[in-house]
Structures are given as structure tokens and as C-alpha cells.
């Protein structure tokens, strides 16, 4: 399915790239350009990232960032509705877009000699959209069906929506990217255009081009097509309401008869990668791996799936790339005959033991070498590299931060992991959710 919503919470931390293939520019109107060279095949990925996502939406209009993303495929002053994608297809390319809490991005994958055409069209729709009431009515039905498919039909997704809303009580990360259904139903042409007029501007955008391209040629084309678009003078500073200190544990039981397998989900508020300050986030990457990476070698996997056999699944996750505070999460699925309270107790017991014990140096070495290897594997995926830079640059990081990250990861120590674990793994800063099919299972 295309027009994906980026998995903001669930995504694992991005791995880095080799610095020498990356060139950056800033155009006079404030637009940043990143070029990643990969000359193995004559293919290019053209991505335009806007530094605006669902967490920047006005109150009452949740879902408008994602709704607008759909509407960008309608008519402009030069393109008919649907023609953008039709032209990309007629050139053998594919195109798509995605929205997260922090960014909205549009991309095309084409033969490298089609890059200029992509820039021509993408720059055209930055300012010249011509959407109608009829577009809004039909496309609103489409995004409501998208919500049906992703969320309403999926008890796990509905539960997660409740848990995230409980985690973020003040910050807009608590509102689903696709929007609350009742607010989506009321999204108007004006909502979409107000958002578009303010945020879709070169000084709020980052262009990432990856593939068989020359940086100076990309720069020249970017100046020609994007450089002529005036900056938005009224672009607001990106300041969001912060979470107040959480002072009490939050617990939720979500009941839905469509649940077949009960489970426990715990998320803790956690620091994200900040520009110039990524060490804690790096330690959290190790913590997630040590606690619940592989079921065979992690603390939770070993204790719950092997030693006590209280769980059939136990994982930890950390998405460090985020503009504002992120989460560190745990999920455990009990074995047959084990209750949720029993499996949660086993999980907490494992965490307590982890905090007391020494961290195994052999595991540290193994994680370090896997992280180093992932830098080599990632070079095989040009689009992945482009996404890495685009996401980082819309989430408060710089090219230097992205390039420093691999080395920061290599230097993480056991003491730093212990310190961040003690800080983050505090149930007073956590939401614990139980997902069950009936009240009987909630014990």
C-alpha cells in the first residue's frame, strides 16, 4: 500500500552511512540540499522532506498533515489531478509519500536522467496546488478507509493509540498521525490549505537526492527549480508543548473481543538523539538490544522464553530519532497458562536483575560488531540512506550528527548503559497496557 504513515514509535534507530559520499548545500531561500552518491546503477531517488508533521497540527484538526499529503497528488496550476504520478509512471518511475509526527516527505525513484523532471514537478506542487471541494470530499473518504484499515480493524493498533495518548498528555505525540476519527470527518479544504500555505515552503524543506548523480549538477538544478521559490516569512518557530514531569505510573486495560492473544506493553518516556548530544540515545540502543533484542541472547528473551518459559515473545524497542522526547518500550506475550500479572512480574523481575548484574562484555562486543556491520549493509540500500538523512534533518539533527553517530555507538560503555537504564526504567514515568479479549483475561 502506498502513502504510508511512517512508523514513528515502532521504528528502530537508523544506522549511519559513510560520510565521504555526502555533499550538502543551502540555497539562498533557506532550503537545505543533501546529495548522497551511489554510482553502482543509473538510478536516483529524489526526496523532498518538509519539517512539518502531525505533531505540528492545529488543535482540533488532527490528521490534516497526512490528509494534505494525499491531496498533494491532486491538481496544480500545471498538472491535472493524478498527473504527477502518471508522469512518474510514464517515465518508468515510482512515487510515494509518507507522514510522521515530525515530517512529511515525498519521493520518486527514477532513472538518474529523469531527475530534472522530478524537480520540475515537485517544486511546482510546493506552492501551486489547486485542490477543490470535490477532491476534499472523496479523499477524506479514502483517509477514513485508511484509518479503518490500519486502526479500526486492528485491535492492537487501537490499543496502541490509547497507550500513546496516555503517555503524552501535553505533547502532540499523543495524537495519532492519521488523526482521531471524529476530527478527520470534519477536515475541510480550508484546514488543508491553511496548513499548506504556511508550512510548504523552501525554508521549511530539505531536498535529499541519492544515487547516480553529481553533486554540482544537483546543486545547479536545485537552484533552478527550488531556489526561485520565495521563503515563507511567517514560518513559526518549531516549539511544541512539552510533557510535564510524570509523577505516577499509568495503567490501562484495553478490552476487544477481536484480540486472540493477550499481551503486556510497557513504554517509558525516554530521551531522543539531540544535536551534539547523542550519547544517552546511543546507550539506549544498546539497552534495547541487551534487554530485548534477540529472543535467544537478550535478558528478557533468555529469562522469559527460555529459563522460565513464561512468555512466547519478549522484546524491547527504542526509536531514538525524534524531534522531542521519545519512548523506550517493552512487549511480552505470556505462554499458555500464564496470566498477564504473572508475565509482567517476570518482566519486572528480569529488569531488576539486569540493573543489579554486570553487563556481559562479550555481548557488548557482539553488539558493537553488529552495529559496525550494519554500516556496510546499509550501503546496499540507497533509498534507506536517503531516508536516514531526511528524517534526521527534519528531527533536529545535522549532517554532522548523522555522521558522528556510528562512532558514538562504538564508544558506548557498560557504565553509560547502566546509568541510562536506571534513569529510564522507572515505572513512575511509564504507561503499562494490557490488551485482552475480555475482562476474565485481565488478571
Amino acid at each position: 500500500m502506498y502513502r504510508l504513515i511512517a512508523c514513528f514509535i515502532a521504528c528502530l534507530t537508523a544506522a549511519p552511512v559513510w560520510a565521504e559520499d555526502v555533499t550538502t548545500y543551502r540555497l539562498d531561500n533557506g532550503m537545505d540540499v543533501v546529495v548522497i552518491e551511489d554510482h553502482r546503477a543509473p538510478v536516483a531517488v529524489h526526496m523532498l522532506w518538509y519539517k512539518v508533521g502531525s505533531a505540528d497540527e492545529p488543535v482540533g484538526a488532527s490528521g490534516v498533515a497526512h490528509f494534505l499529503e494525499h491531496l498533494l497528488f491532486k491538481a496544480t496550476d500545471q498538472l491535472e489531478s493524478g498527473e504527477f504520478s502518471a508522469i512518474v509512471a510514464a517515465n518508468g518511475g515510482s512515487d510515494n509519500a509518507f507522514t510522521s509526527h515530525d515530517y512529511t516527505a515525498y519521493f520518486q525513484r527514477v532513472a538518474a536522467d529523469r531527475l530534472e523532471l522530478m524537480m520540475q514537478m515537485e517544486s511546482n506542487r510546493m506552492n501551486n496546488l489547486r485542490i477543490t471541494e470535490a477532491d476534499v470530499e472523496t479523499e477524506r473518504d479514502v483517509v477514513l478507509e485508511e484509518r479503518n484499515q490500519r486502526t479500526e480493524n486492528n485491535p492492537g493498533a487501537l490499543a496502541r493509540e490509547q497507550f500513546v495518548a496516555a503517555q503524552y498528555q501535553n505533547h502532540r505525540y499523543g495524537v495519532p498521525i492519521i488523526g482521531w476519527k471524529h476530527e478527520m470527518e470534519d477536515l475541510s479544504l480550508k484546514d488543508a490549505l491553511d496548513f499548506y500555505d504556511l508550512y510548504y515552503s523552501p525554508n521549511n524543506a530539505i531536498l535529499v537526492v541519492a544515487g547516480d548523480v553529481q553533486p554540482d549538477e544537483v546543486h545547479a538544478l536545485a537552484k533552478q527549480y527550488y531556489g526561485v521559490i520565495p521563503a515563507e516569512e511567517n514560518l513559526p518557530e518549531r516549539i511544541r508543548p512539552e510533557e510535564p514531569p510524570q509523577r505516577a505510573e499509568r495503567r490501562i486495560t484495553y478490552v476487544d473481543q477481536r484480540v486472540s492473544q493477550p499481551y503486556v506493553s510497557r513504554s517509558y518516556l525516554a530521551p531522543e538523539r539531540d544535536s551534539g548530544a547523542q550519547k544517552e540515545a546511543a546507550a539506549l540502543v544498546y539497552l534495547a538490544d541487551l534487554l530485548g533484542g534477540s529472543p535467544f541472547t537478550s535478558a528478557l528473551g533468555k529469562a522469559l522464553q527460555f529459563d522460565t518459559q513464561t512468555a512466547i515473545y519478549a522484546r524491547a524497542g527504542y526509536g531514538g530519532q525524534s524531534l522531542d522526547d521519545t519512548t523506550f518500550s517493552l512487549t511480552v506475550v505470556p505462554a499458555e497458562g500464564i496470566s498477564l500479572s504473572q508475565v509482567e512480574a517476570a518482566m519486572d523481575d528480569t529488569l531488576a536483575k539486569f540493573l543489579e548484574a554486570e553487563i556481559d562484555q562479550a555481548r557488548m562486543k557482539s553488539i558493537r560488531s553488529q552495529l559496525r556491520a550494519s554500516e556496510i549493509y546499509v550501503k546496499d540500500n540507497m533509498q534507506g540512506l536517503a531516508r536516514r538523512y531526511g528524517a534526521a534533518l527534519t528531527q533536529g539533527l545535522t549532517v554532522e550528527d548523522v555522521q558522528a553517530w556510528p562512532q558514538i555507538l562504538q564508544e558506548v560503555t557498560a557504565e553509560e548503559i547502566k546509568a541510562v537504564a536506571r534513569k529510564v526504567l522507572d515505572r513512575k514515568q511509564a504507561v503499562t497496557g494490557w490488551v485482552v479479549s475480555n475482562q476474565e483475561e485481565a488478571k
Partner: protein
Amino acid sequence: MMYRFIVAAVFAASANIVSALEIEEITSDGGINAWVVEEPAIPFVALEIRVRGGTSLDVEGKRGAINLMTALIEEGSGDLDAQAFQTRLEDLAASFSFRAYDDTMSISARFLTENQDEVLALLRQALTDPRFDQAAIDRVRAQVISGIASDEKNPNRIAGAYFDSAGFGAHPYGTSDDGTVESVNALTQADMFAAHSAALTRDRMFVSAVGDITTDEIGPMLDALLGDLPAEGPPMPEAVEFALDGGVTVIDFETPQSVALFGHKGIKRDDDRYFAAYLLNEVLGGSGRESRLMYEVREKRGLTYGISSFLVPKLHAELLLGQVASGNDTMAEAIAVTRDVWTDLAVNGMTQVELDEIKTYLTGAYPLRFDGNAEIAGIMVGMQMIGLPVDYIDTRNEKLNAVTLDEVNALAADLLQPDDLHFVVVGQPVGLESTD
């Protein structure tokens, strides 16, 4: 209608990409055939192995055996139990993937060149000397059974299970690869060893490798890796006719959005008209965004987030399938529109403009697939499995372009049978009743 002038240049670009790819076909001393691309730019290797047969080789009463066995390959072998094996694999920073599908067993490995010998020794041990420890069987069995339970509450899985059962009956295609709770609970360690020697054999094996490796080392490497597997597997199942007639089946399930799986008989992969069928399906409901179904059901009416159709040429049967999800109050309309699209394309065919546009898209998109070691390895092994020659990559676009409007529309009249379409709908659709 700006920009159109650039379209004509696409073919030149295609030719460049394809001719840049140098595929070597080798046969090892032990008789294993492989396709290899040397790509030293990045110091790693992607290795793909496929074995025809898959879960359809499950024997009577042992449904789910090959699926469970496949999940256990990474759970201990030789002198290493599950945890020791995985610790070793992580230390080597490599990844293995073992999957069982209805017609195929799939083995994928990715490893750094610097660790090649140790990784291949570990993979060899996993493939040729699995332990199938009782503790591992019991642990993974519980995961499989949890998955079976989840499928029973998943609308898409419910639709698929009905469709397969009604269409294929007692043939292996008629039931889930996972087996049932009862059949999986009854599986023993002896069943695992039996499933292993049936499903992993050299007689129907295909191999590709791409990356920082030389063609010369591949033959001895494959003989060491795979030479000790059994030479021959058991006979494959018979071919089967899809037996579900046209109509609608509604399966009641309390959820806001109905899901529908629909389809009828398809076309064999080795049919001379397969290229025409491929073009036809792309126009009907294919991967591009411009299909007729997407336009009519989504873009024009907002009835769904996505609708698609796909050719499914299995080894022992062939289908043309589609799927759509729509709110309970709009599913009936989505199905009516789908039927109309199907009928119109069958009766009136597509236009020359549509055919030209889809050819332009598909021929232009084809070379863009070859943009990474892992992608190329996957494409090559897929080609080998359906018996395509190495030079197919160079001739494929020509063959696609050679299909005429008459050919594609003659096929449309033959293949698309609106009266044979059966819709299995799971949900509580308003105004839609089962026909049987």
C-alpha cells in the same frame, strides 16, 4: 500536459542498466547450478537458495510439519543448542532467514566478506545437521499455535482460509501451511527429521549470489554447503483445478471495515500469453497507481484505501485474485464497481493508449529493480525457479513491447470471467448476502 517530451528517452536508460549487469552461470562439480554477480564495491555477500516443494510436501496427517521444521533450522545444530547457535551468528554479524511457502523453501544469508568462511560453516551446520531438540520444538510450537489462534480472529486470514478451502479442498493448497492446533500438537521430533529430508533436497534447488565474491570460489563453496543434503525429494502433489464457482460468501465478523478476497482461475506462468496477462493485470489492478480498479474504487469514489489484483501462478494451480477493504456500509458498492470494471475490460478490452502507457511504465521500471546486491540476488533466483535464461533480462522488455492490442484483448475476453468471480467477504457488510 507538460513534460511529455521526456518520455521517449526512457528506453536508452533501461538498456544501460541491464547491460551493466554481468551474470555468470556456473555448475559446481557436485552438480549445483548457480547464478553469480561479482560486485566488489561493498564488502559483503547476499546468498539466496530456493528449493521447490515447500509446505505442499507435508504428508497426510502431518500438516504444519514443514513450516515448524523450517522455523527450527535456526534453533540449534551440530554441537550448538539454540542459544549457542544464535550467539555465534550474532558474533559474526551475519543474518540468516529460513522460510517455507506453499511451493518453495527459501533460505537467505547475508554476511561480511571478512567472515565468509565461518558464516558458511555455520549455515552448513544449520542446513545439514539440525538438532530439533525437544525443548526447541515445544517452544516454537507454542509460537506457531499462538499464530494459528490469531489467524482465527484476523479478517484477511479468515477470508483466505475460506477461499483456499472452498477452492482447493483436500489438496495441500486447501489448508493453512501452519497446520491446525491439533495437527501441530501431534508433531514429533521424528516428524521434523522426516520433513527436513523431504523439503531440503538438491534435485530442485536454485542458488544465486551477489557481492564481494568471485565466481571461481562459488562452486566449491556450494558443494561444501549443500553437498550433503539428500539428492532427491518425494514426489510433488498433483495439479488441482480451482473449484470455487462465481458468487458471494459473507462471513459474519464484528468489525467496522469489511475485507474482501475475490478471484477465479488464472493462467500458467509458462503459457505463451503470460506477458499479455501481465499487462492486462497491471491495467486491471496492478502494482502501479494507475490501475482501473484503483481509479474507479478509490480515486473516483473514495470507497477504499487500496484495491489490487494479482496473478498467482502456483506450481500446481493458477489464480487471478484481488483484494479490497471497505467500510461495512460501502462494501456492497465496492464489489459492484469491481464487477463492472472486470466486465468492461473483458467485453471491451483496453485501449491502445492504456496498453502503450502500461508498457512504458513497466519497461522503464524494470531496470530500476536491479539496484542492490540483495535485490539482484532475489531477482536472479526467482528467474531460475521459473526456468528463465540468463539473457531474459536483456530480452524481457522487447517481449513485453511485442504484445499487441489484439493479443491482450483476446486474452482479456478469455481470462476475465465476471460470472466466475467469487467474493469472500468478512465483516458485516450492509446489503450483501451470500449466494450459496
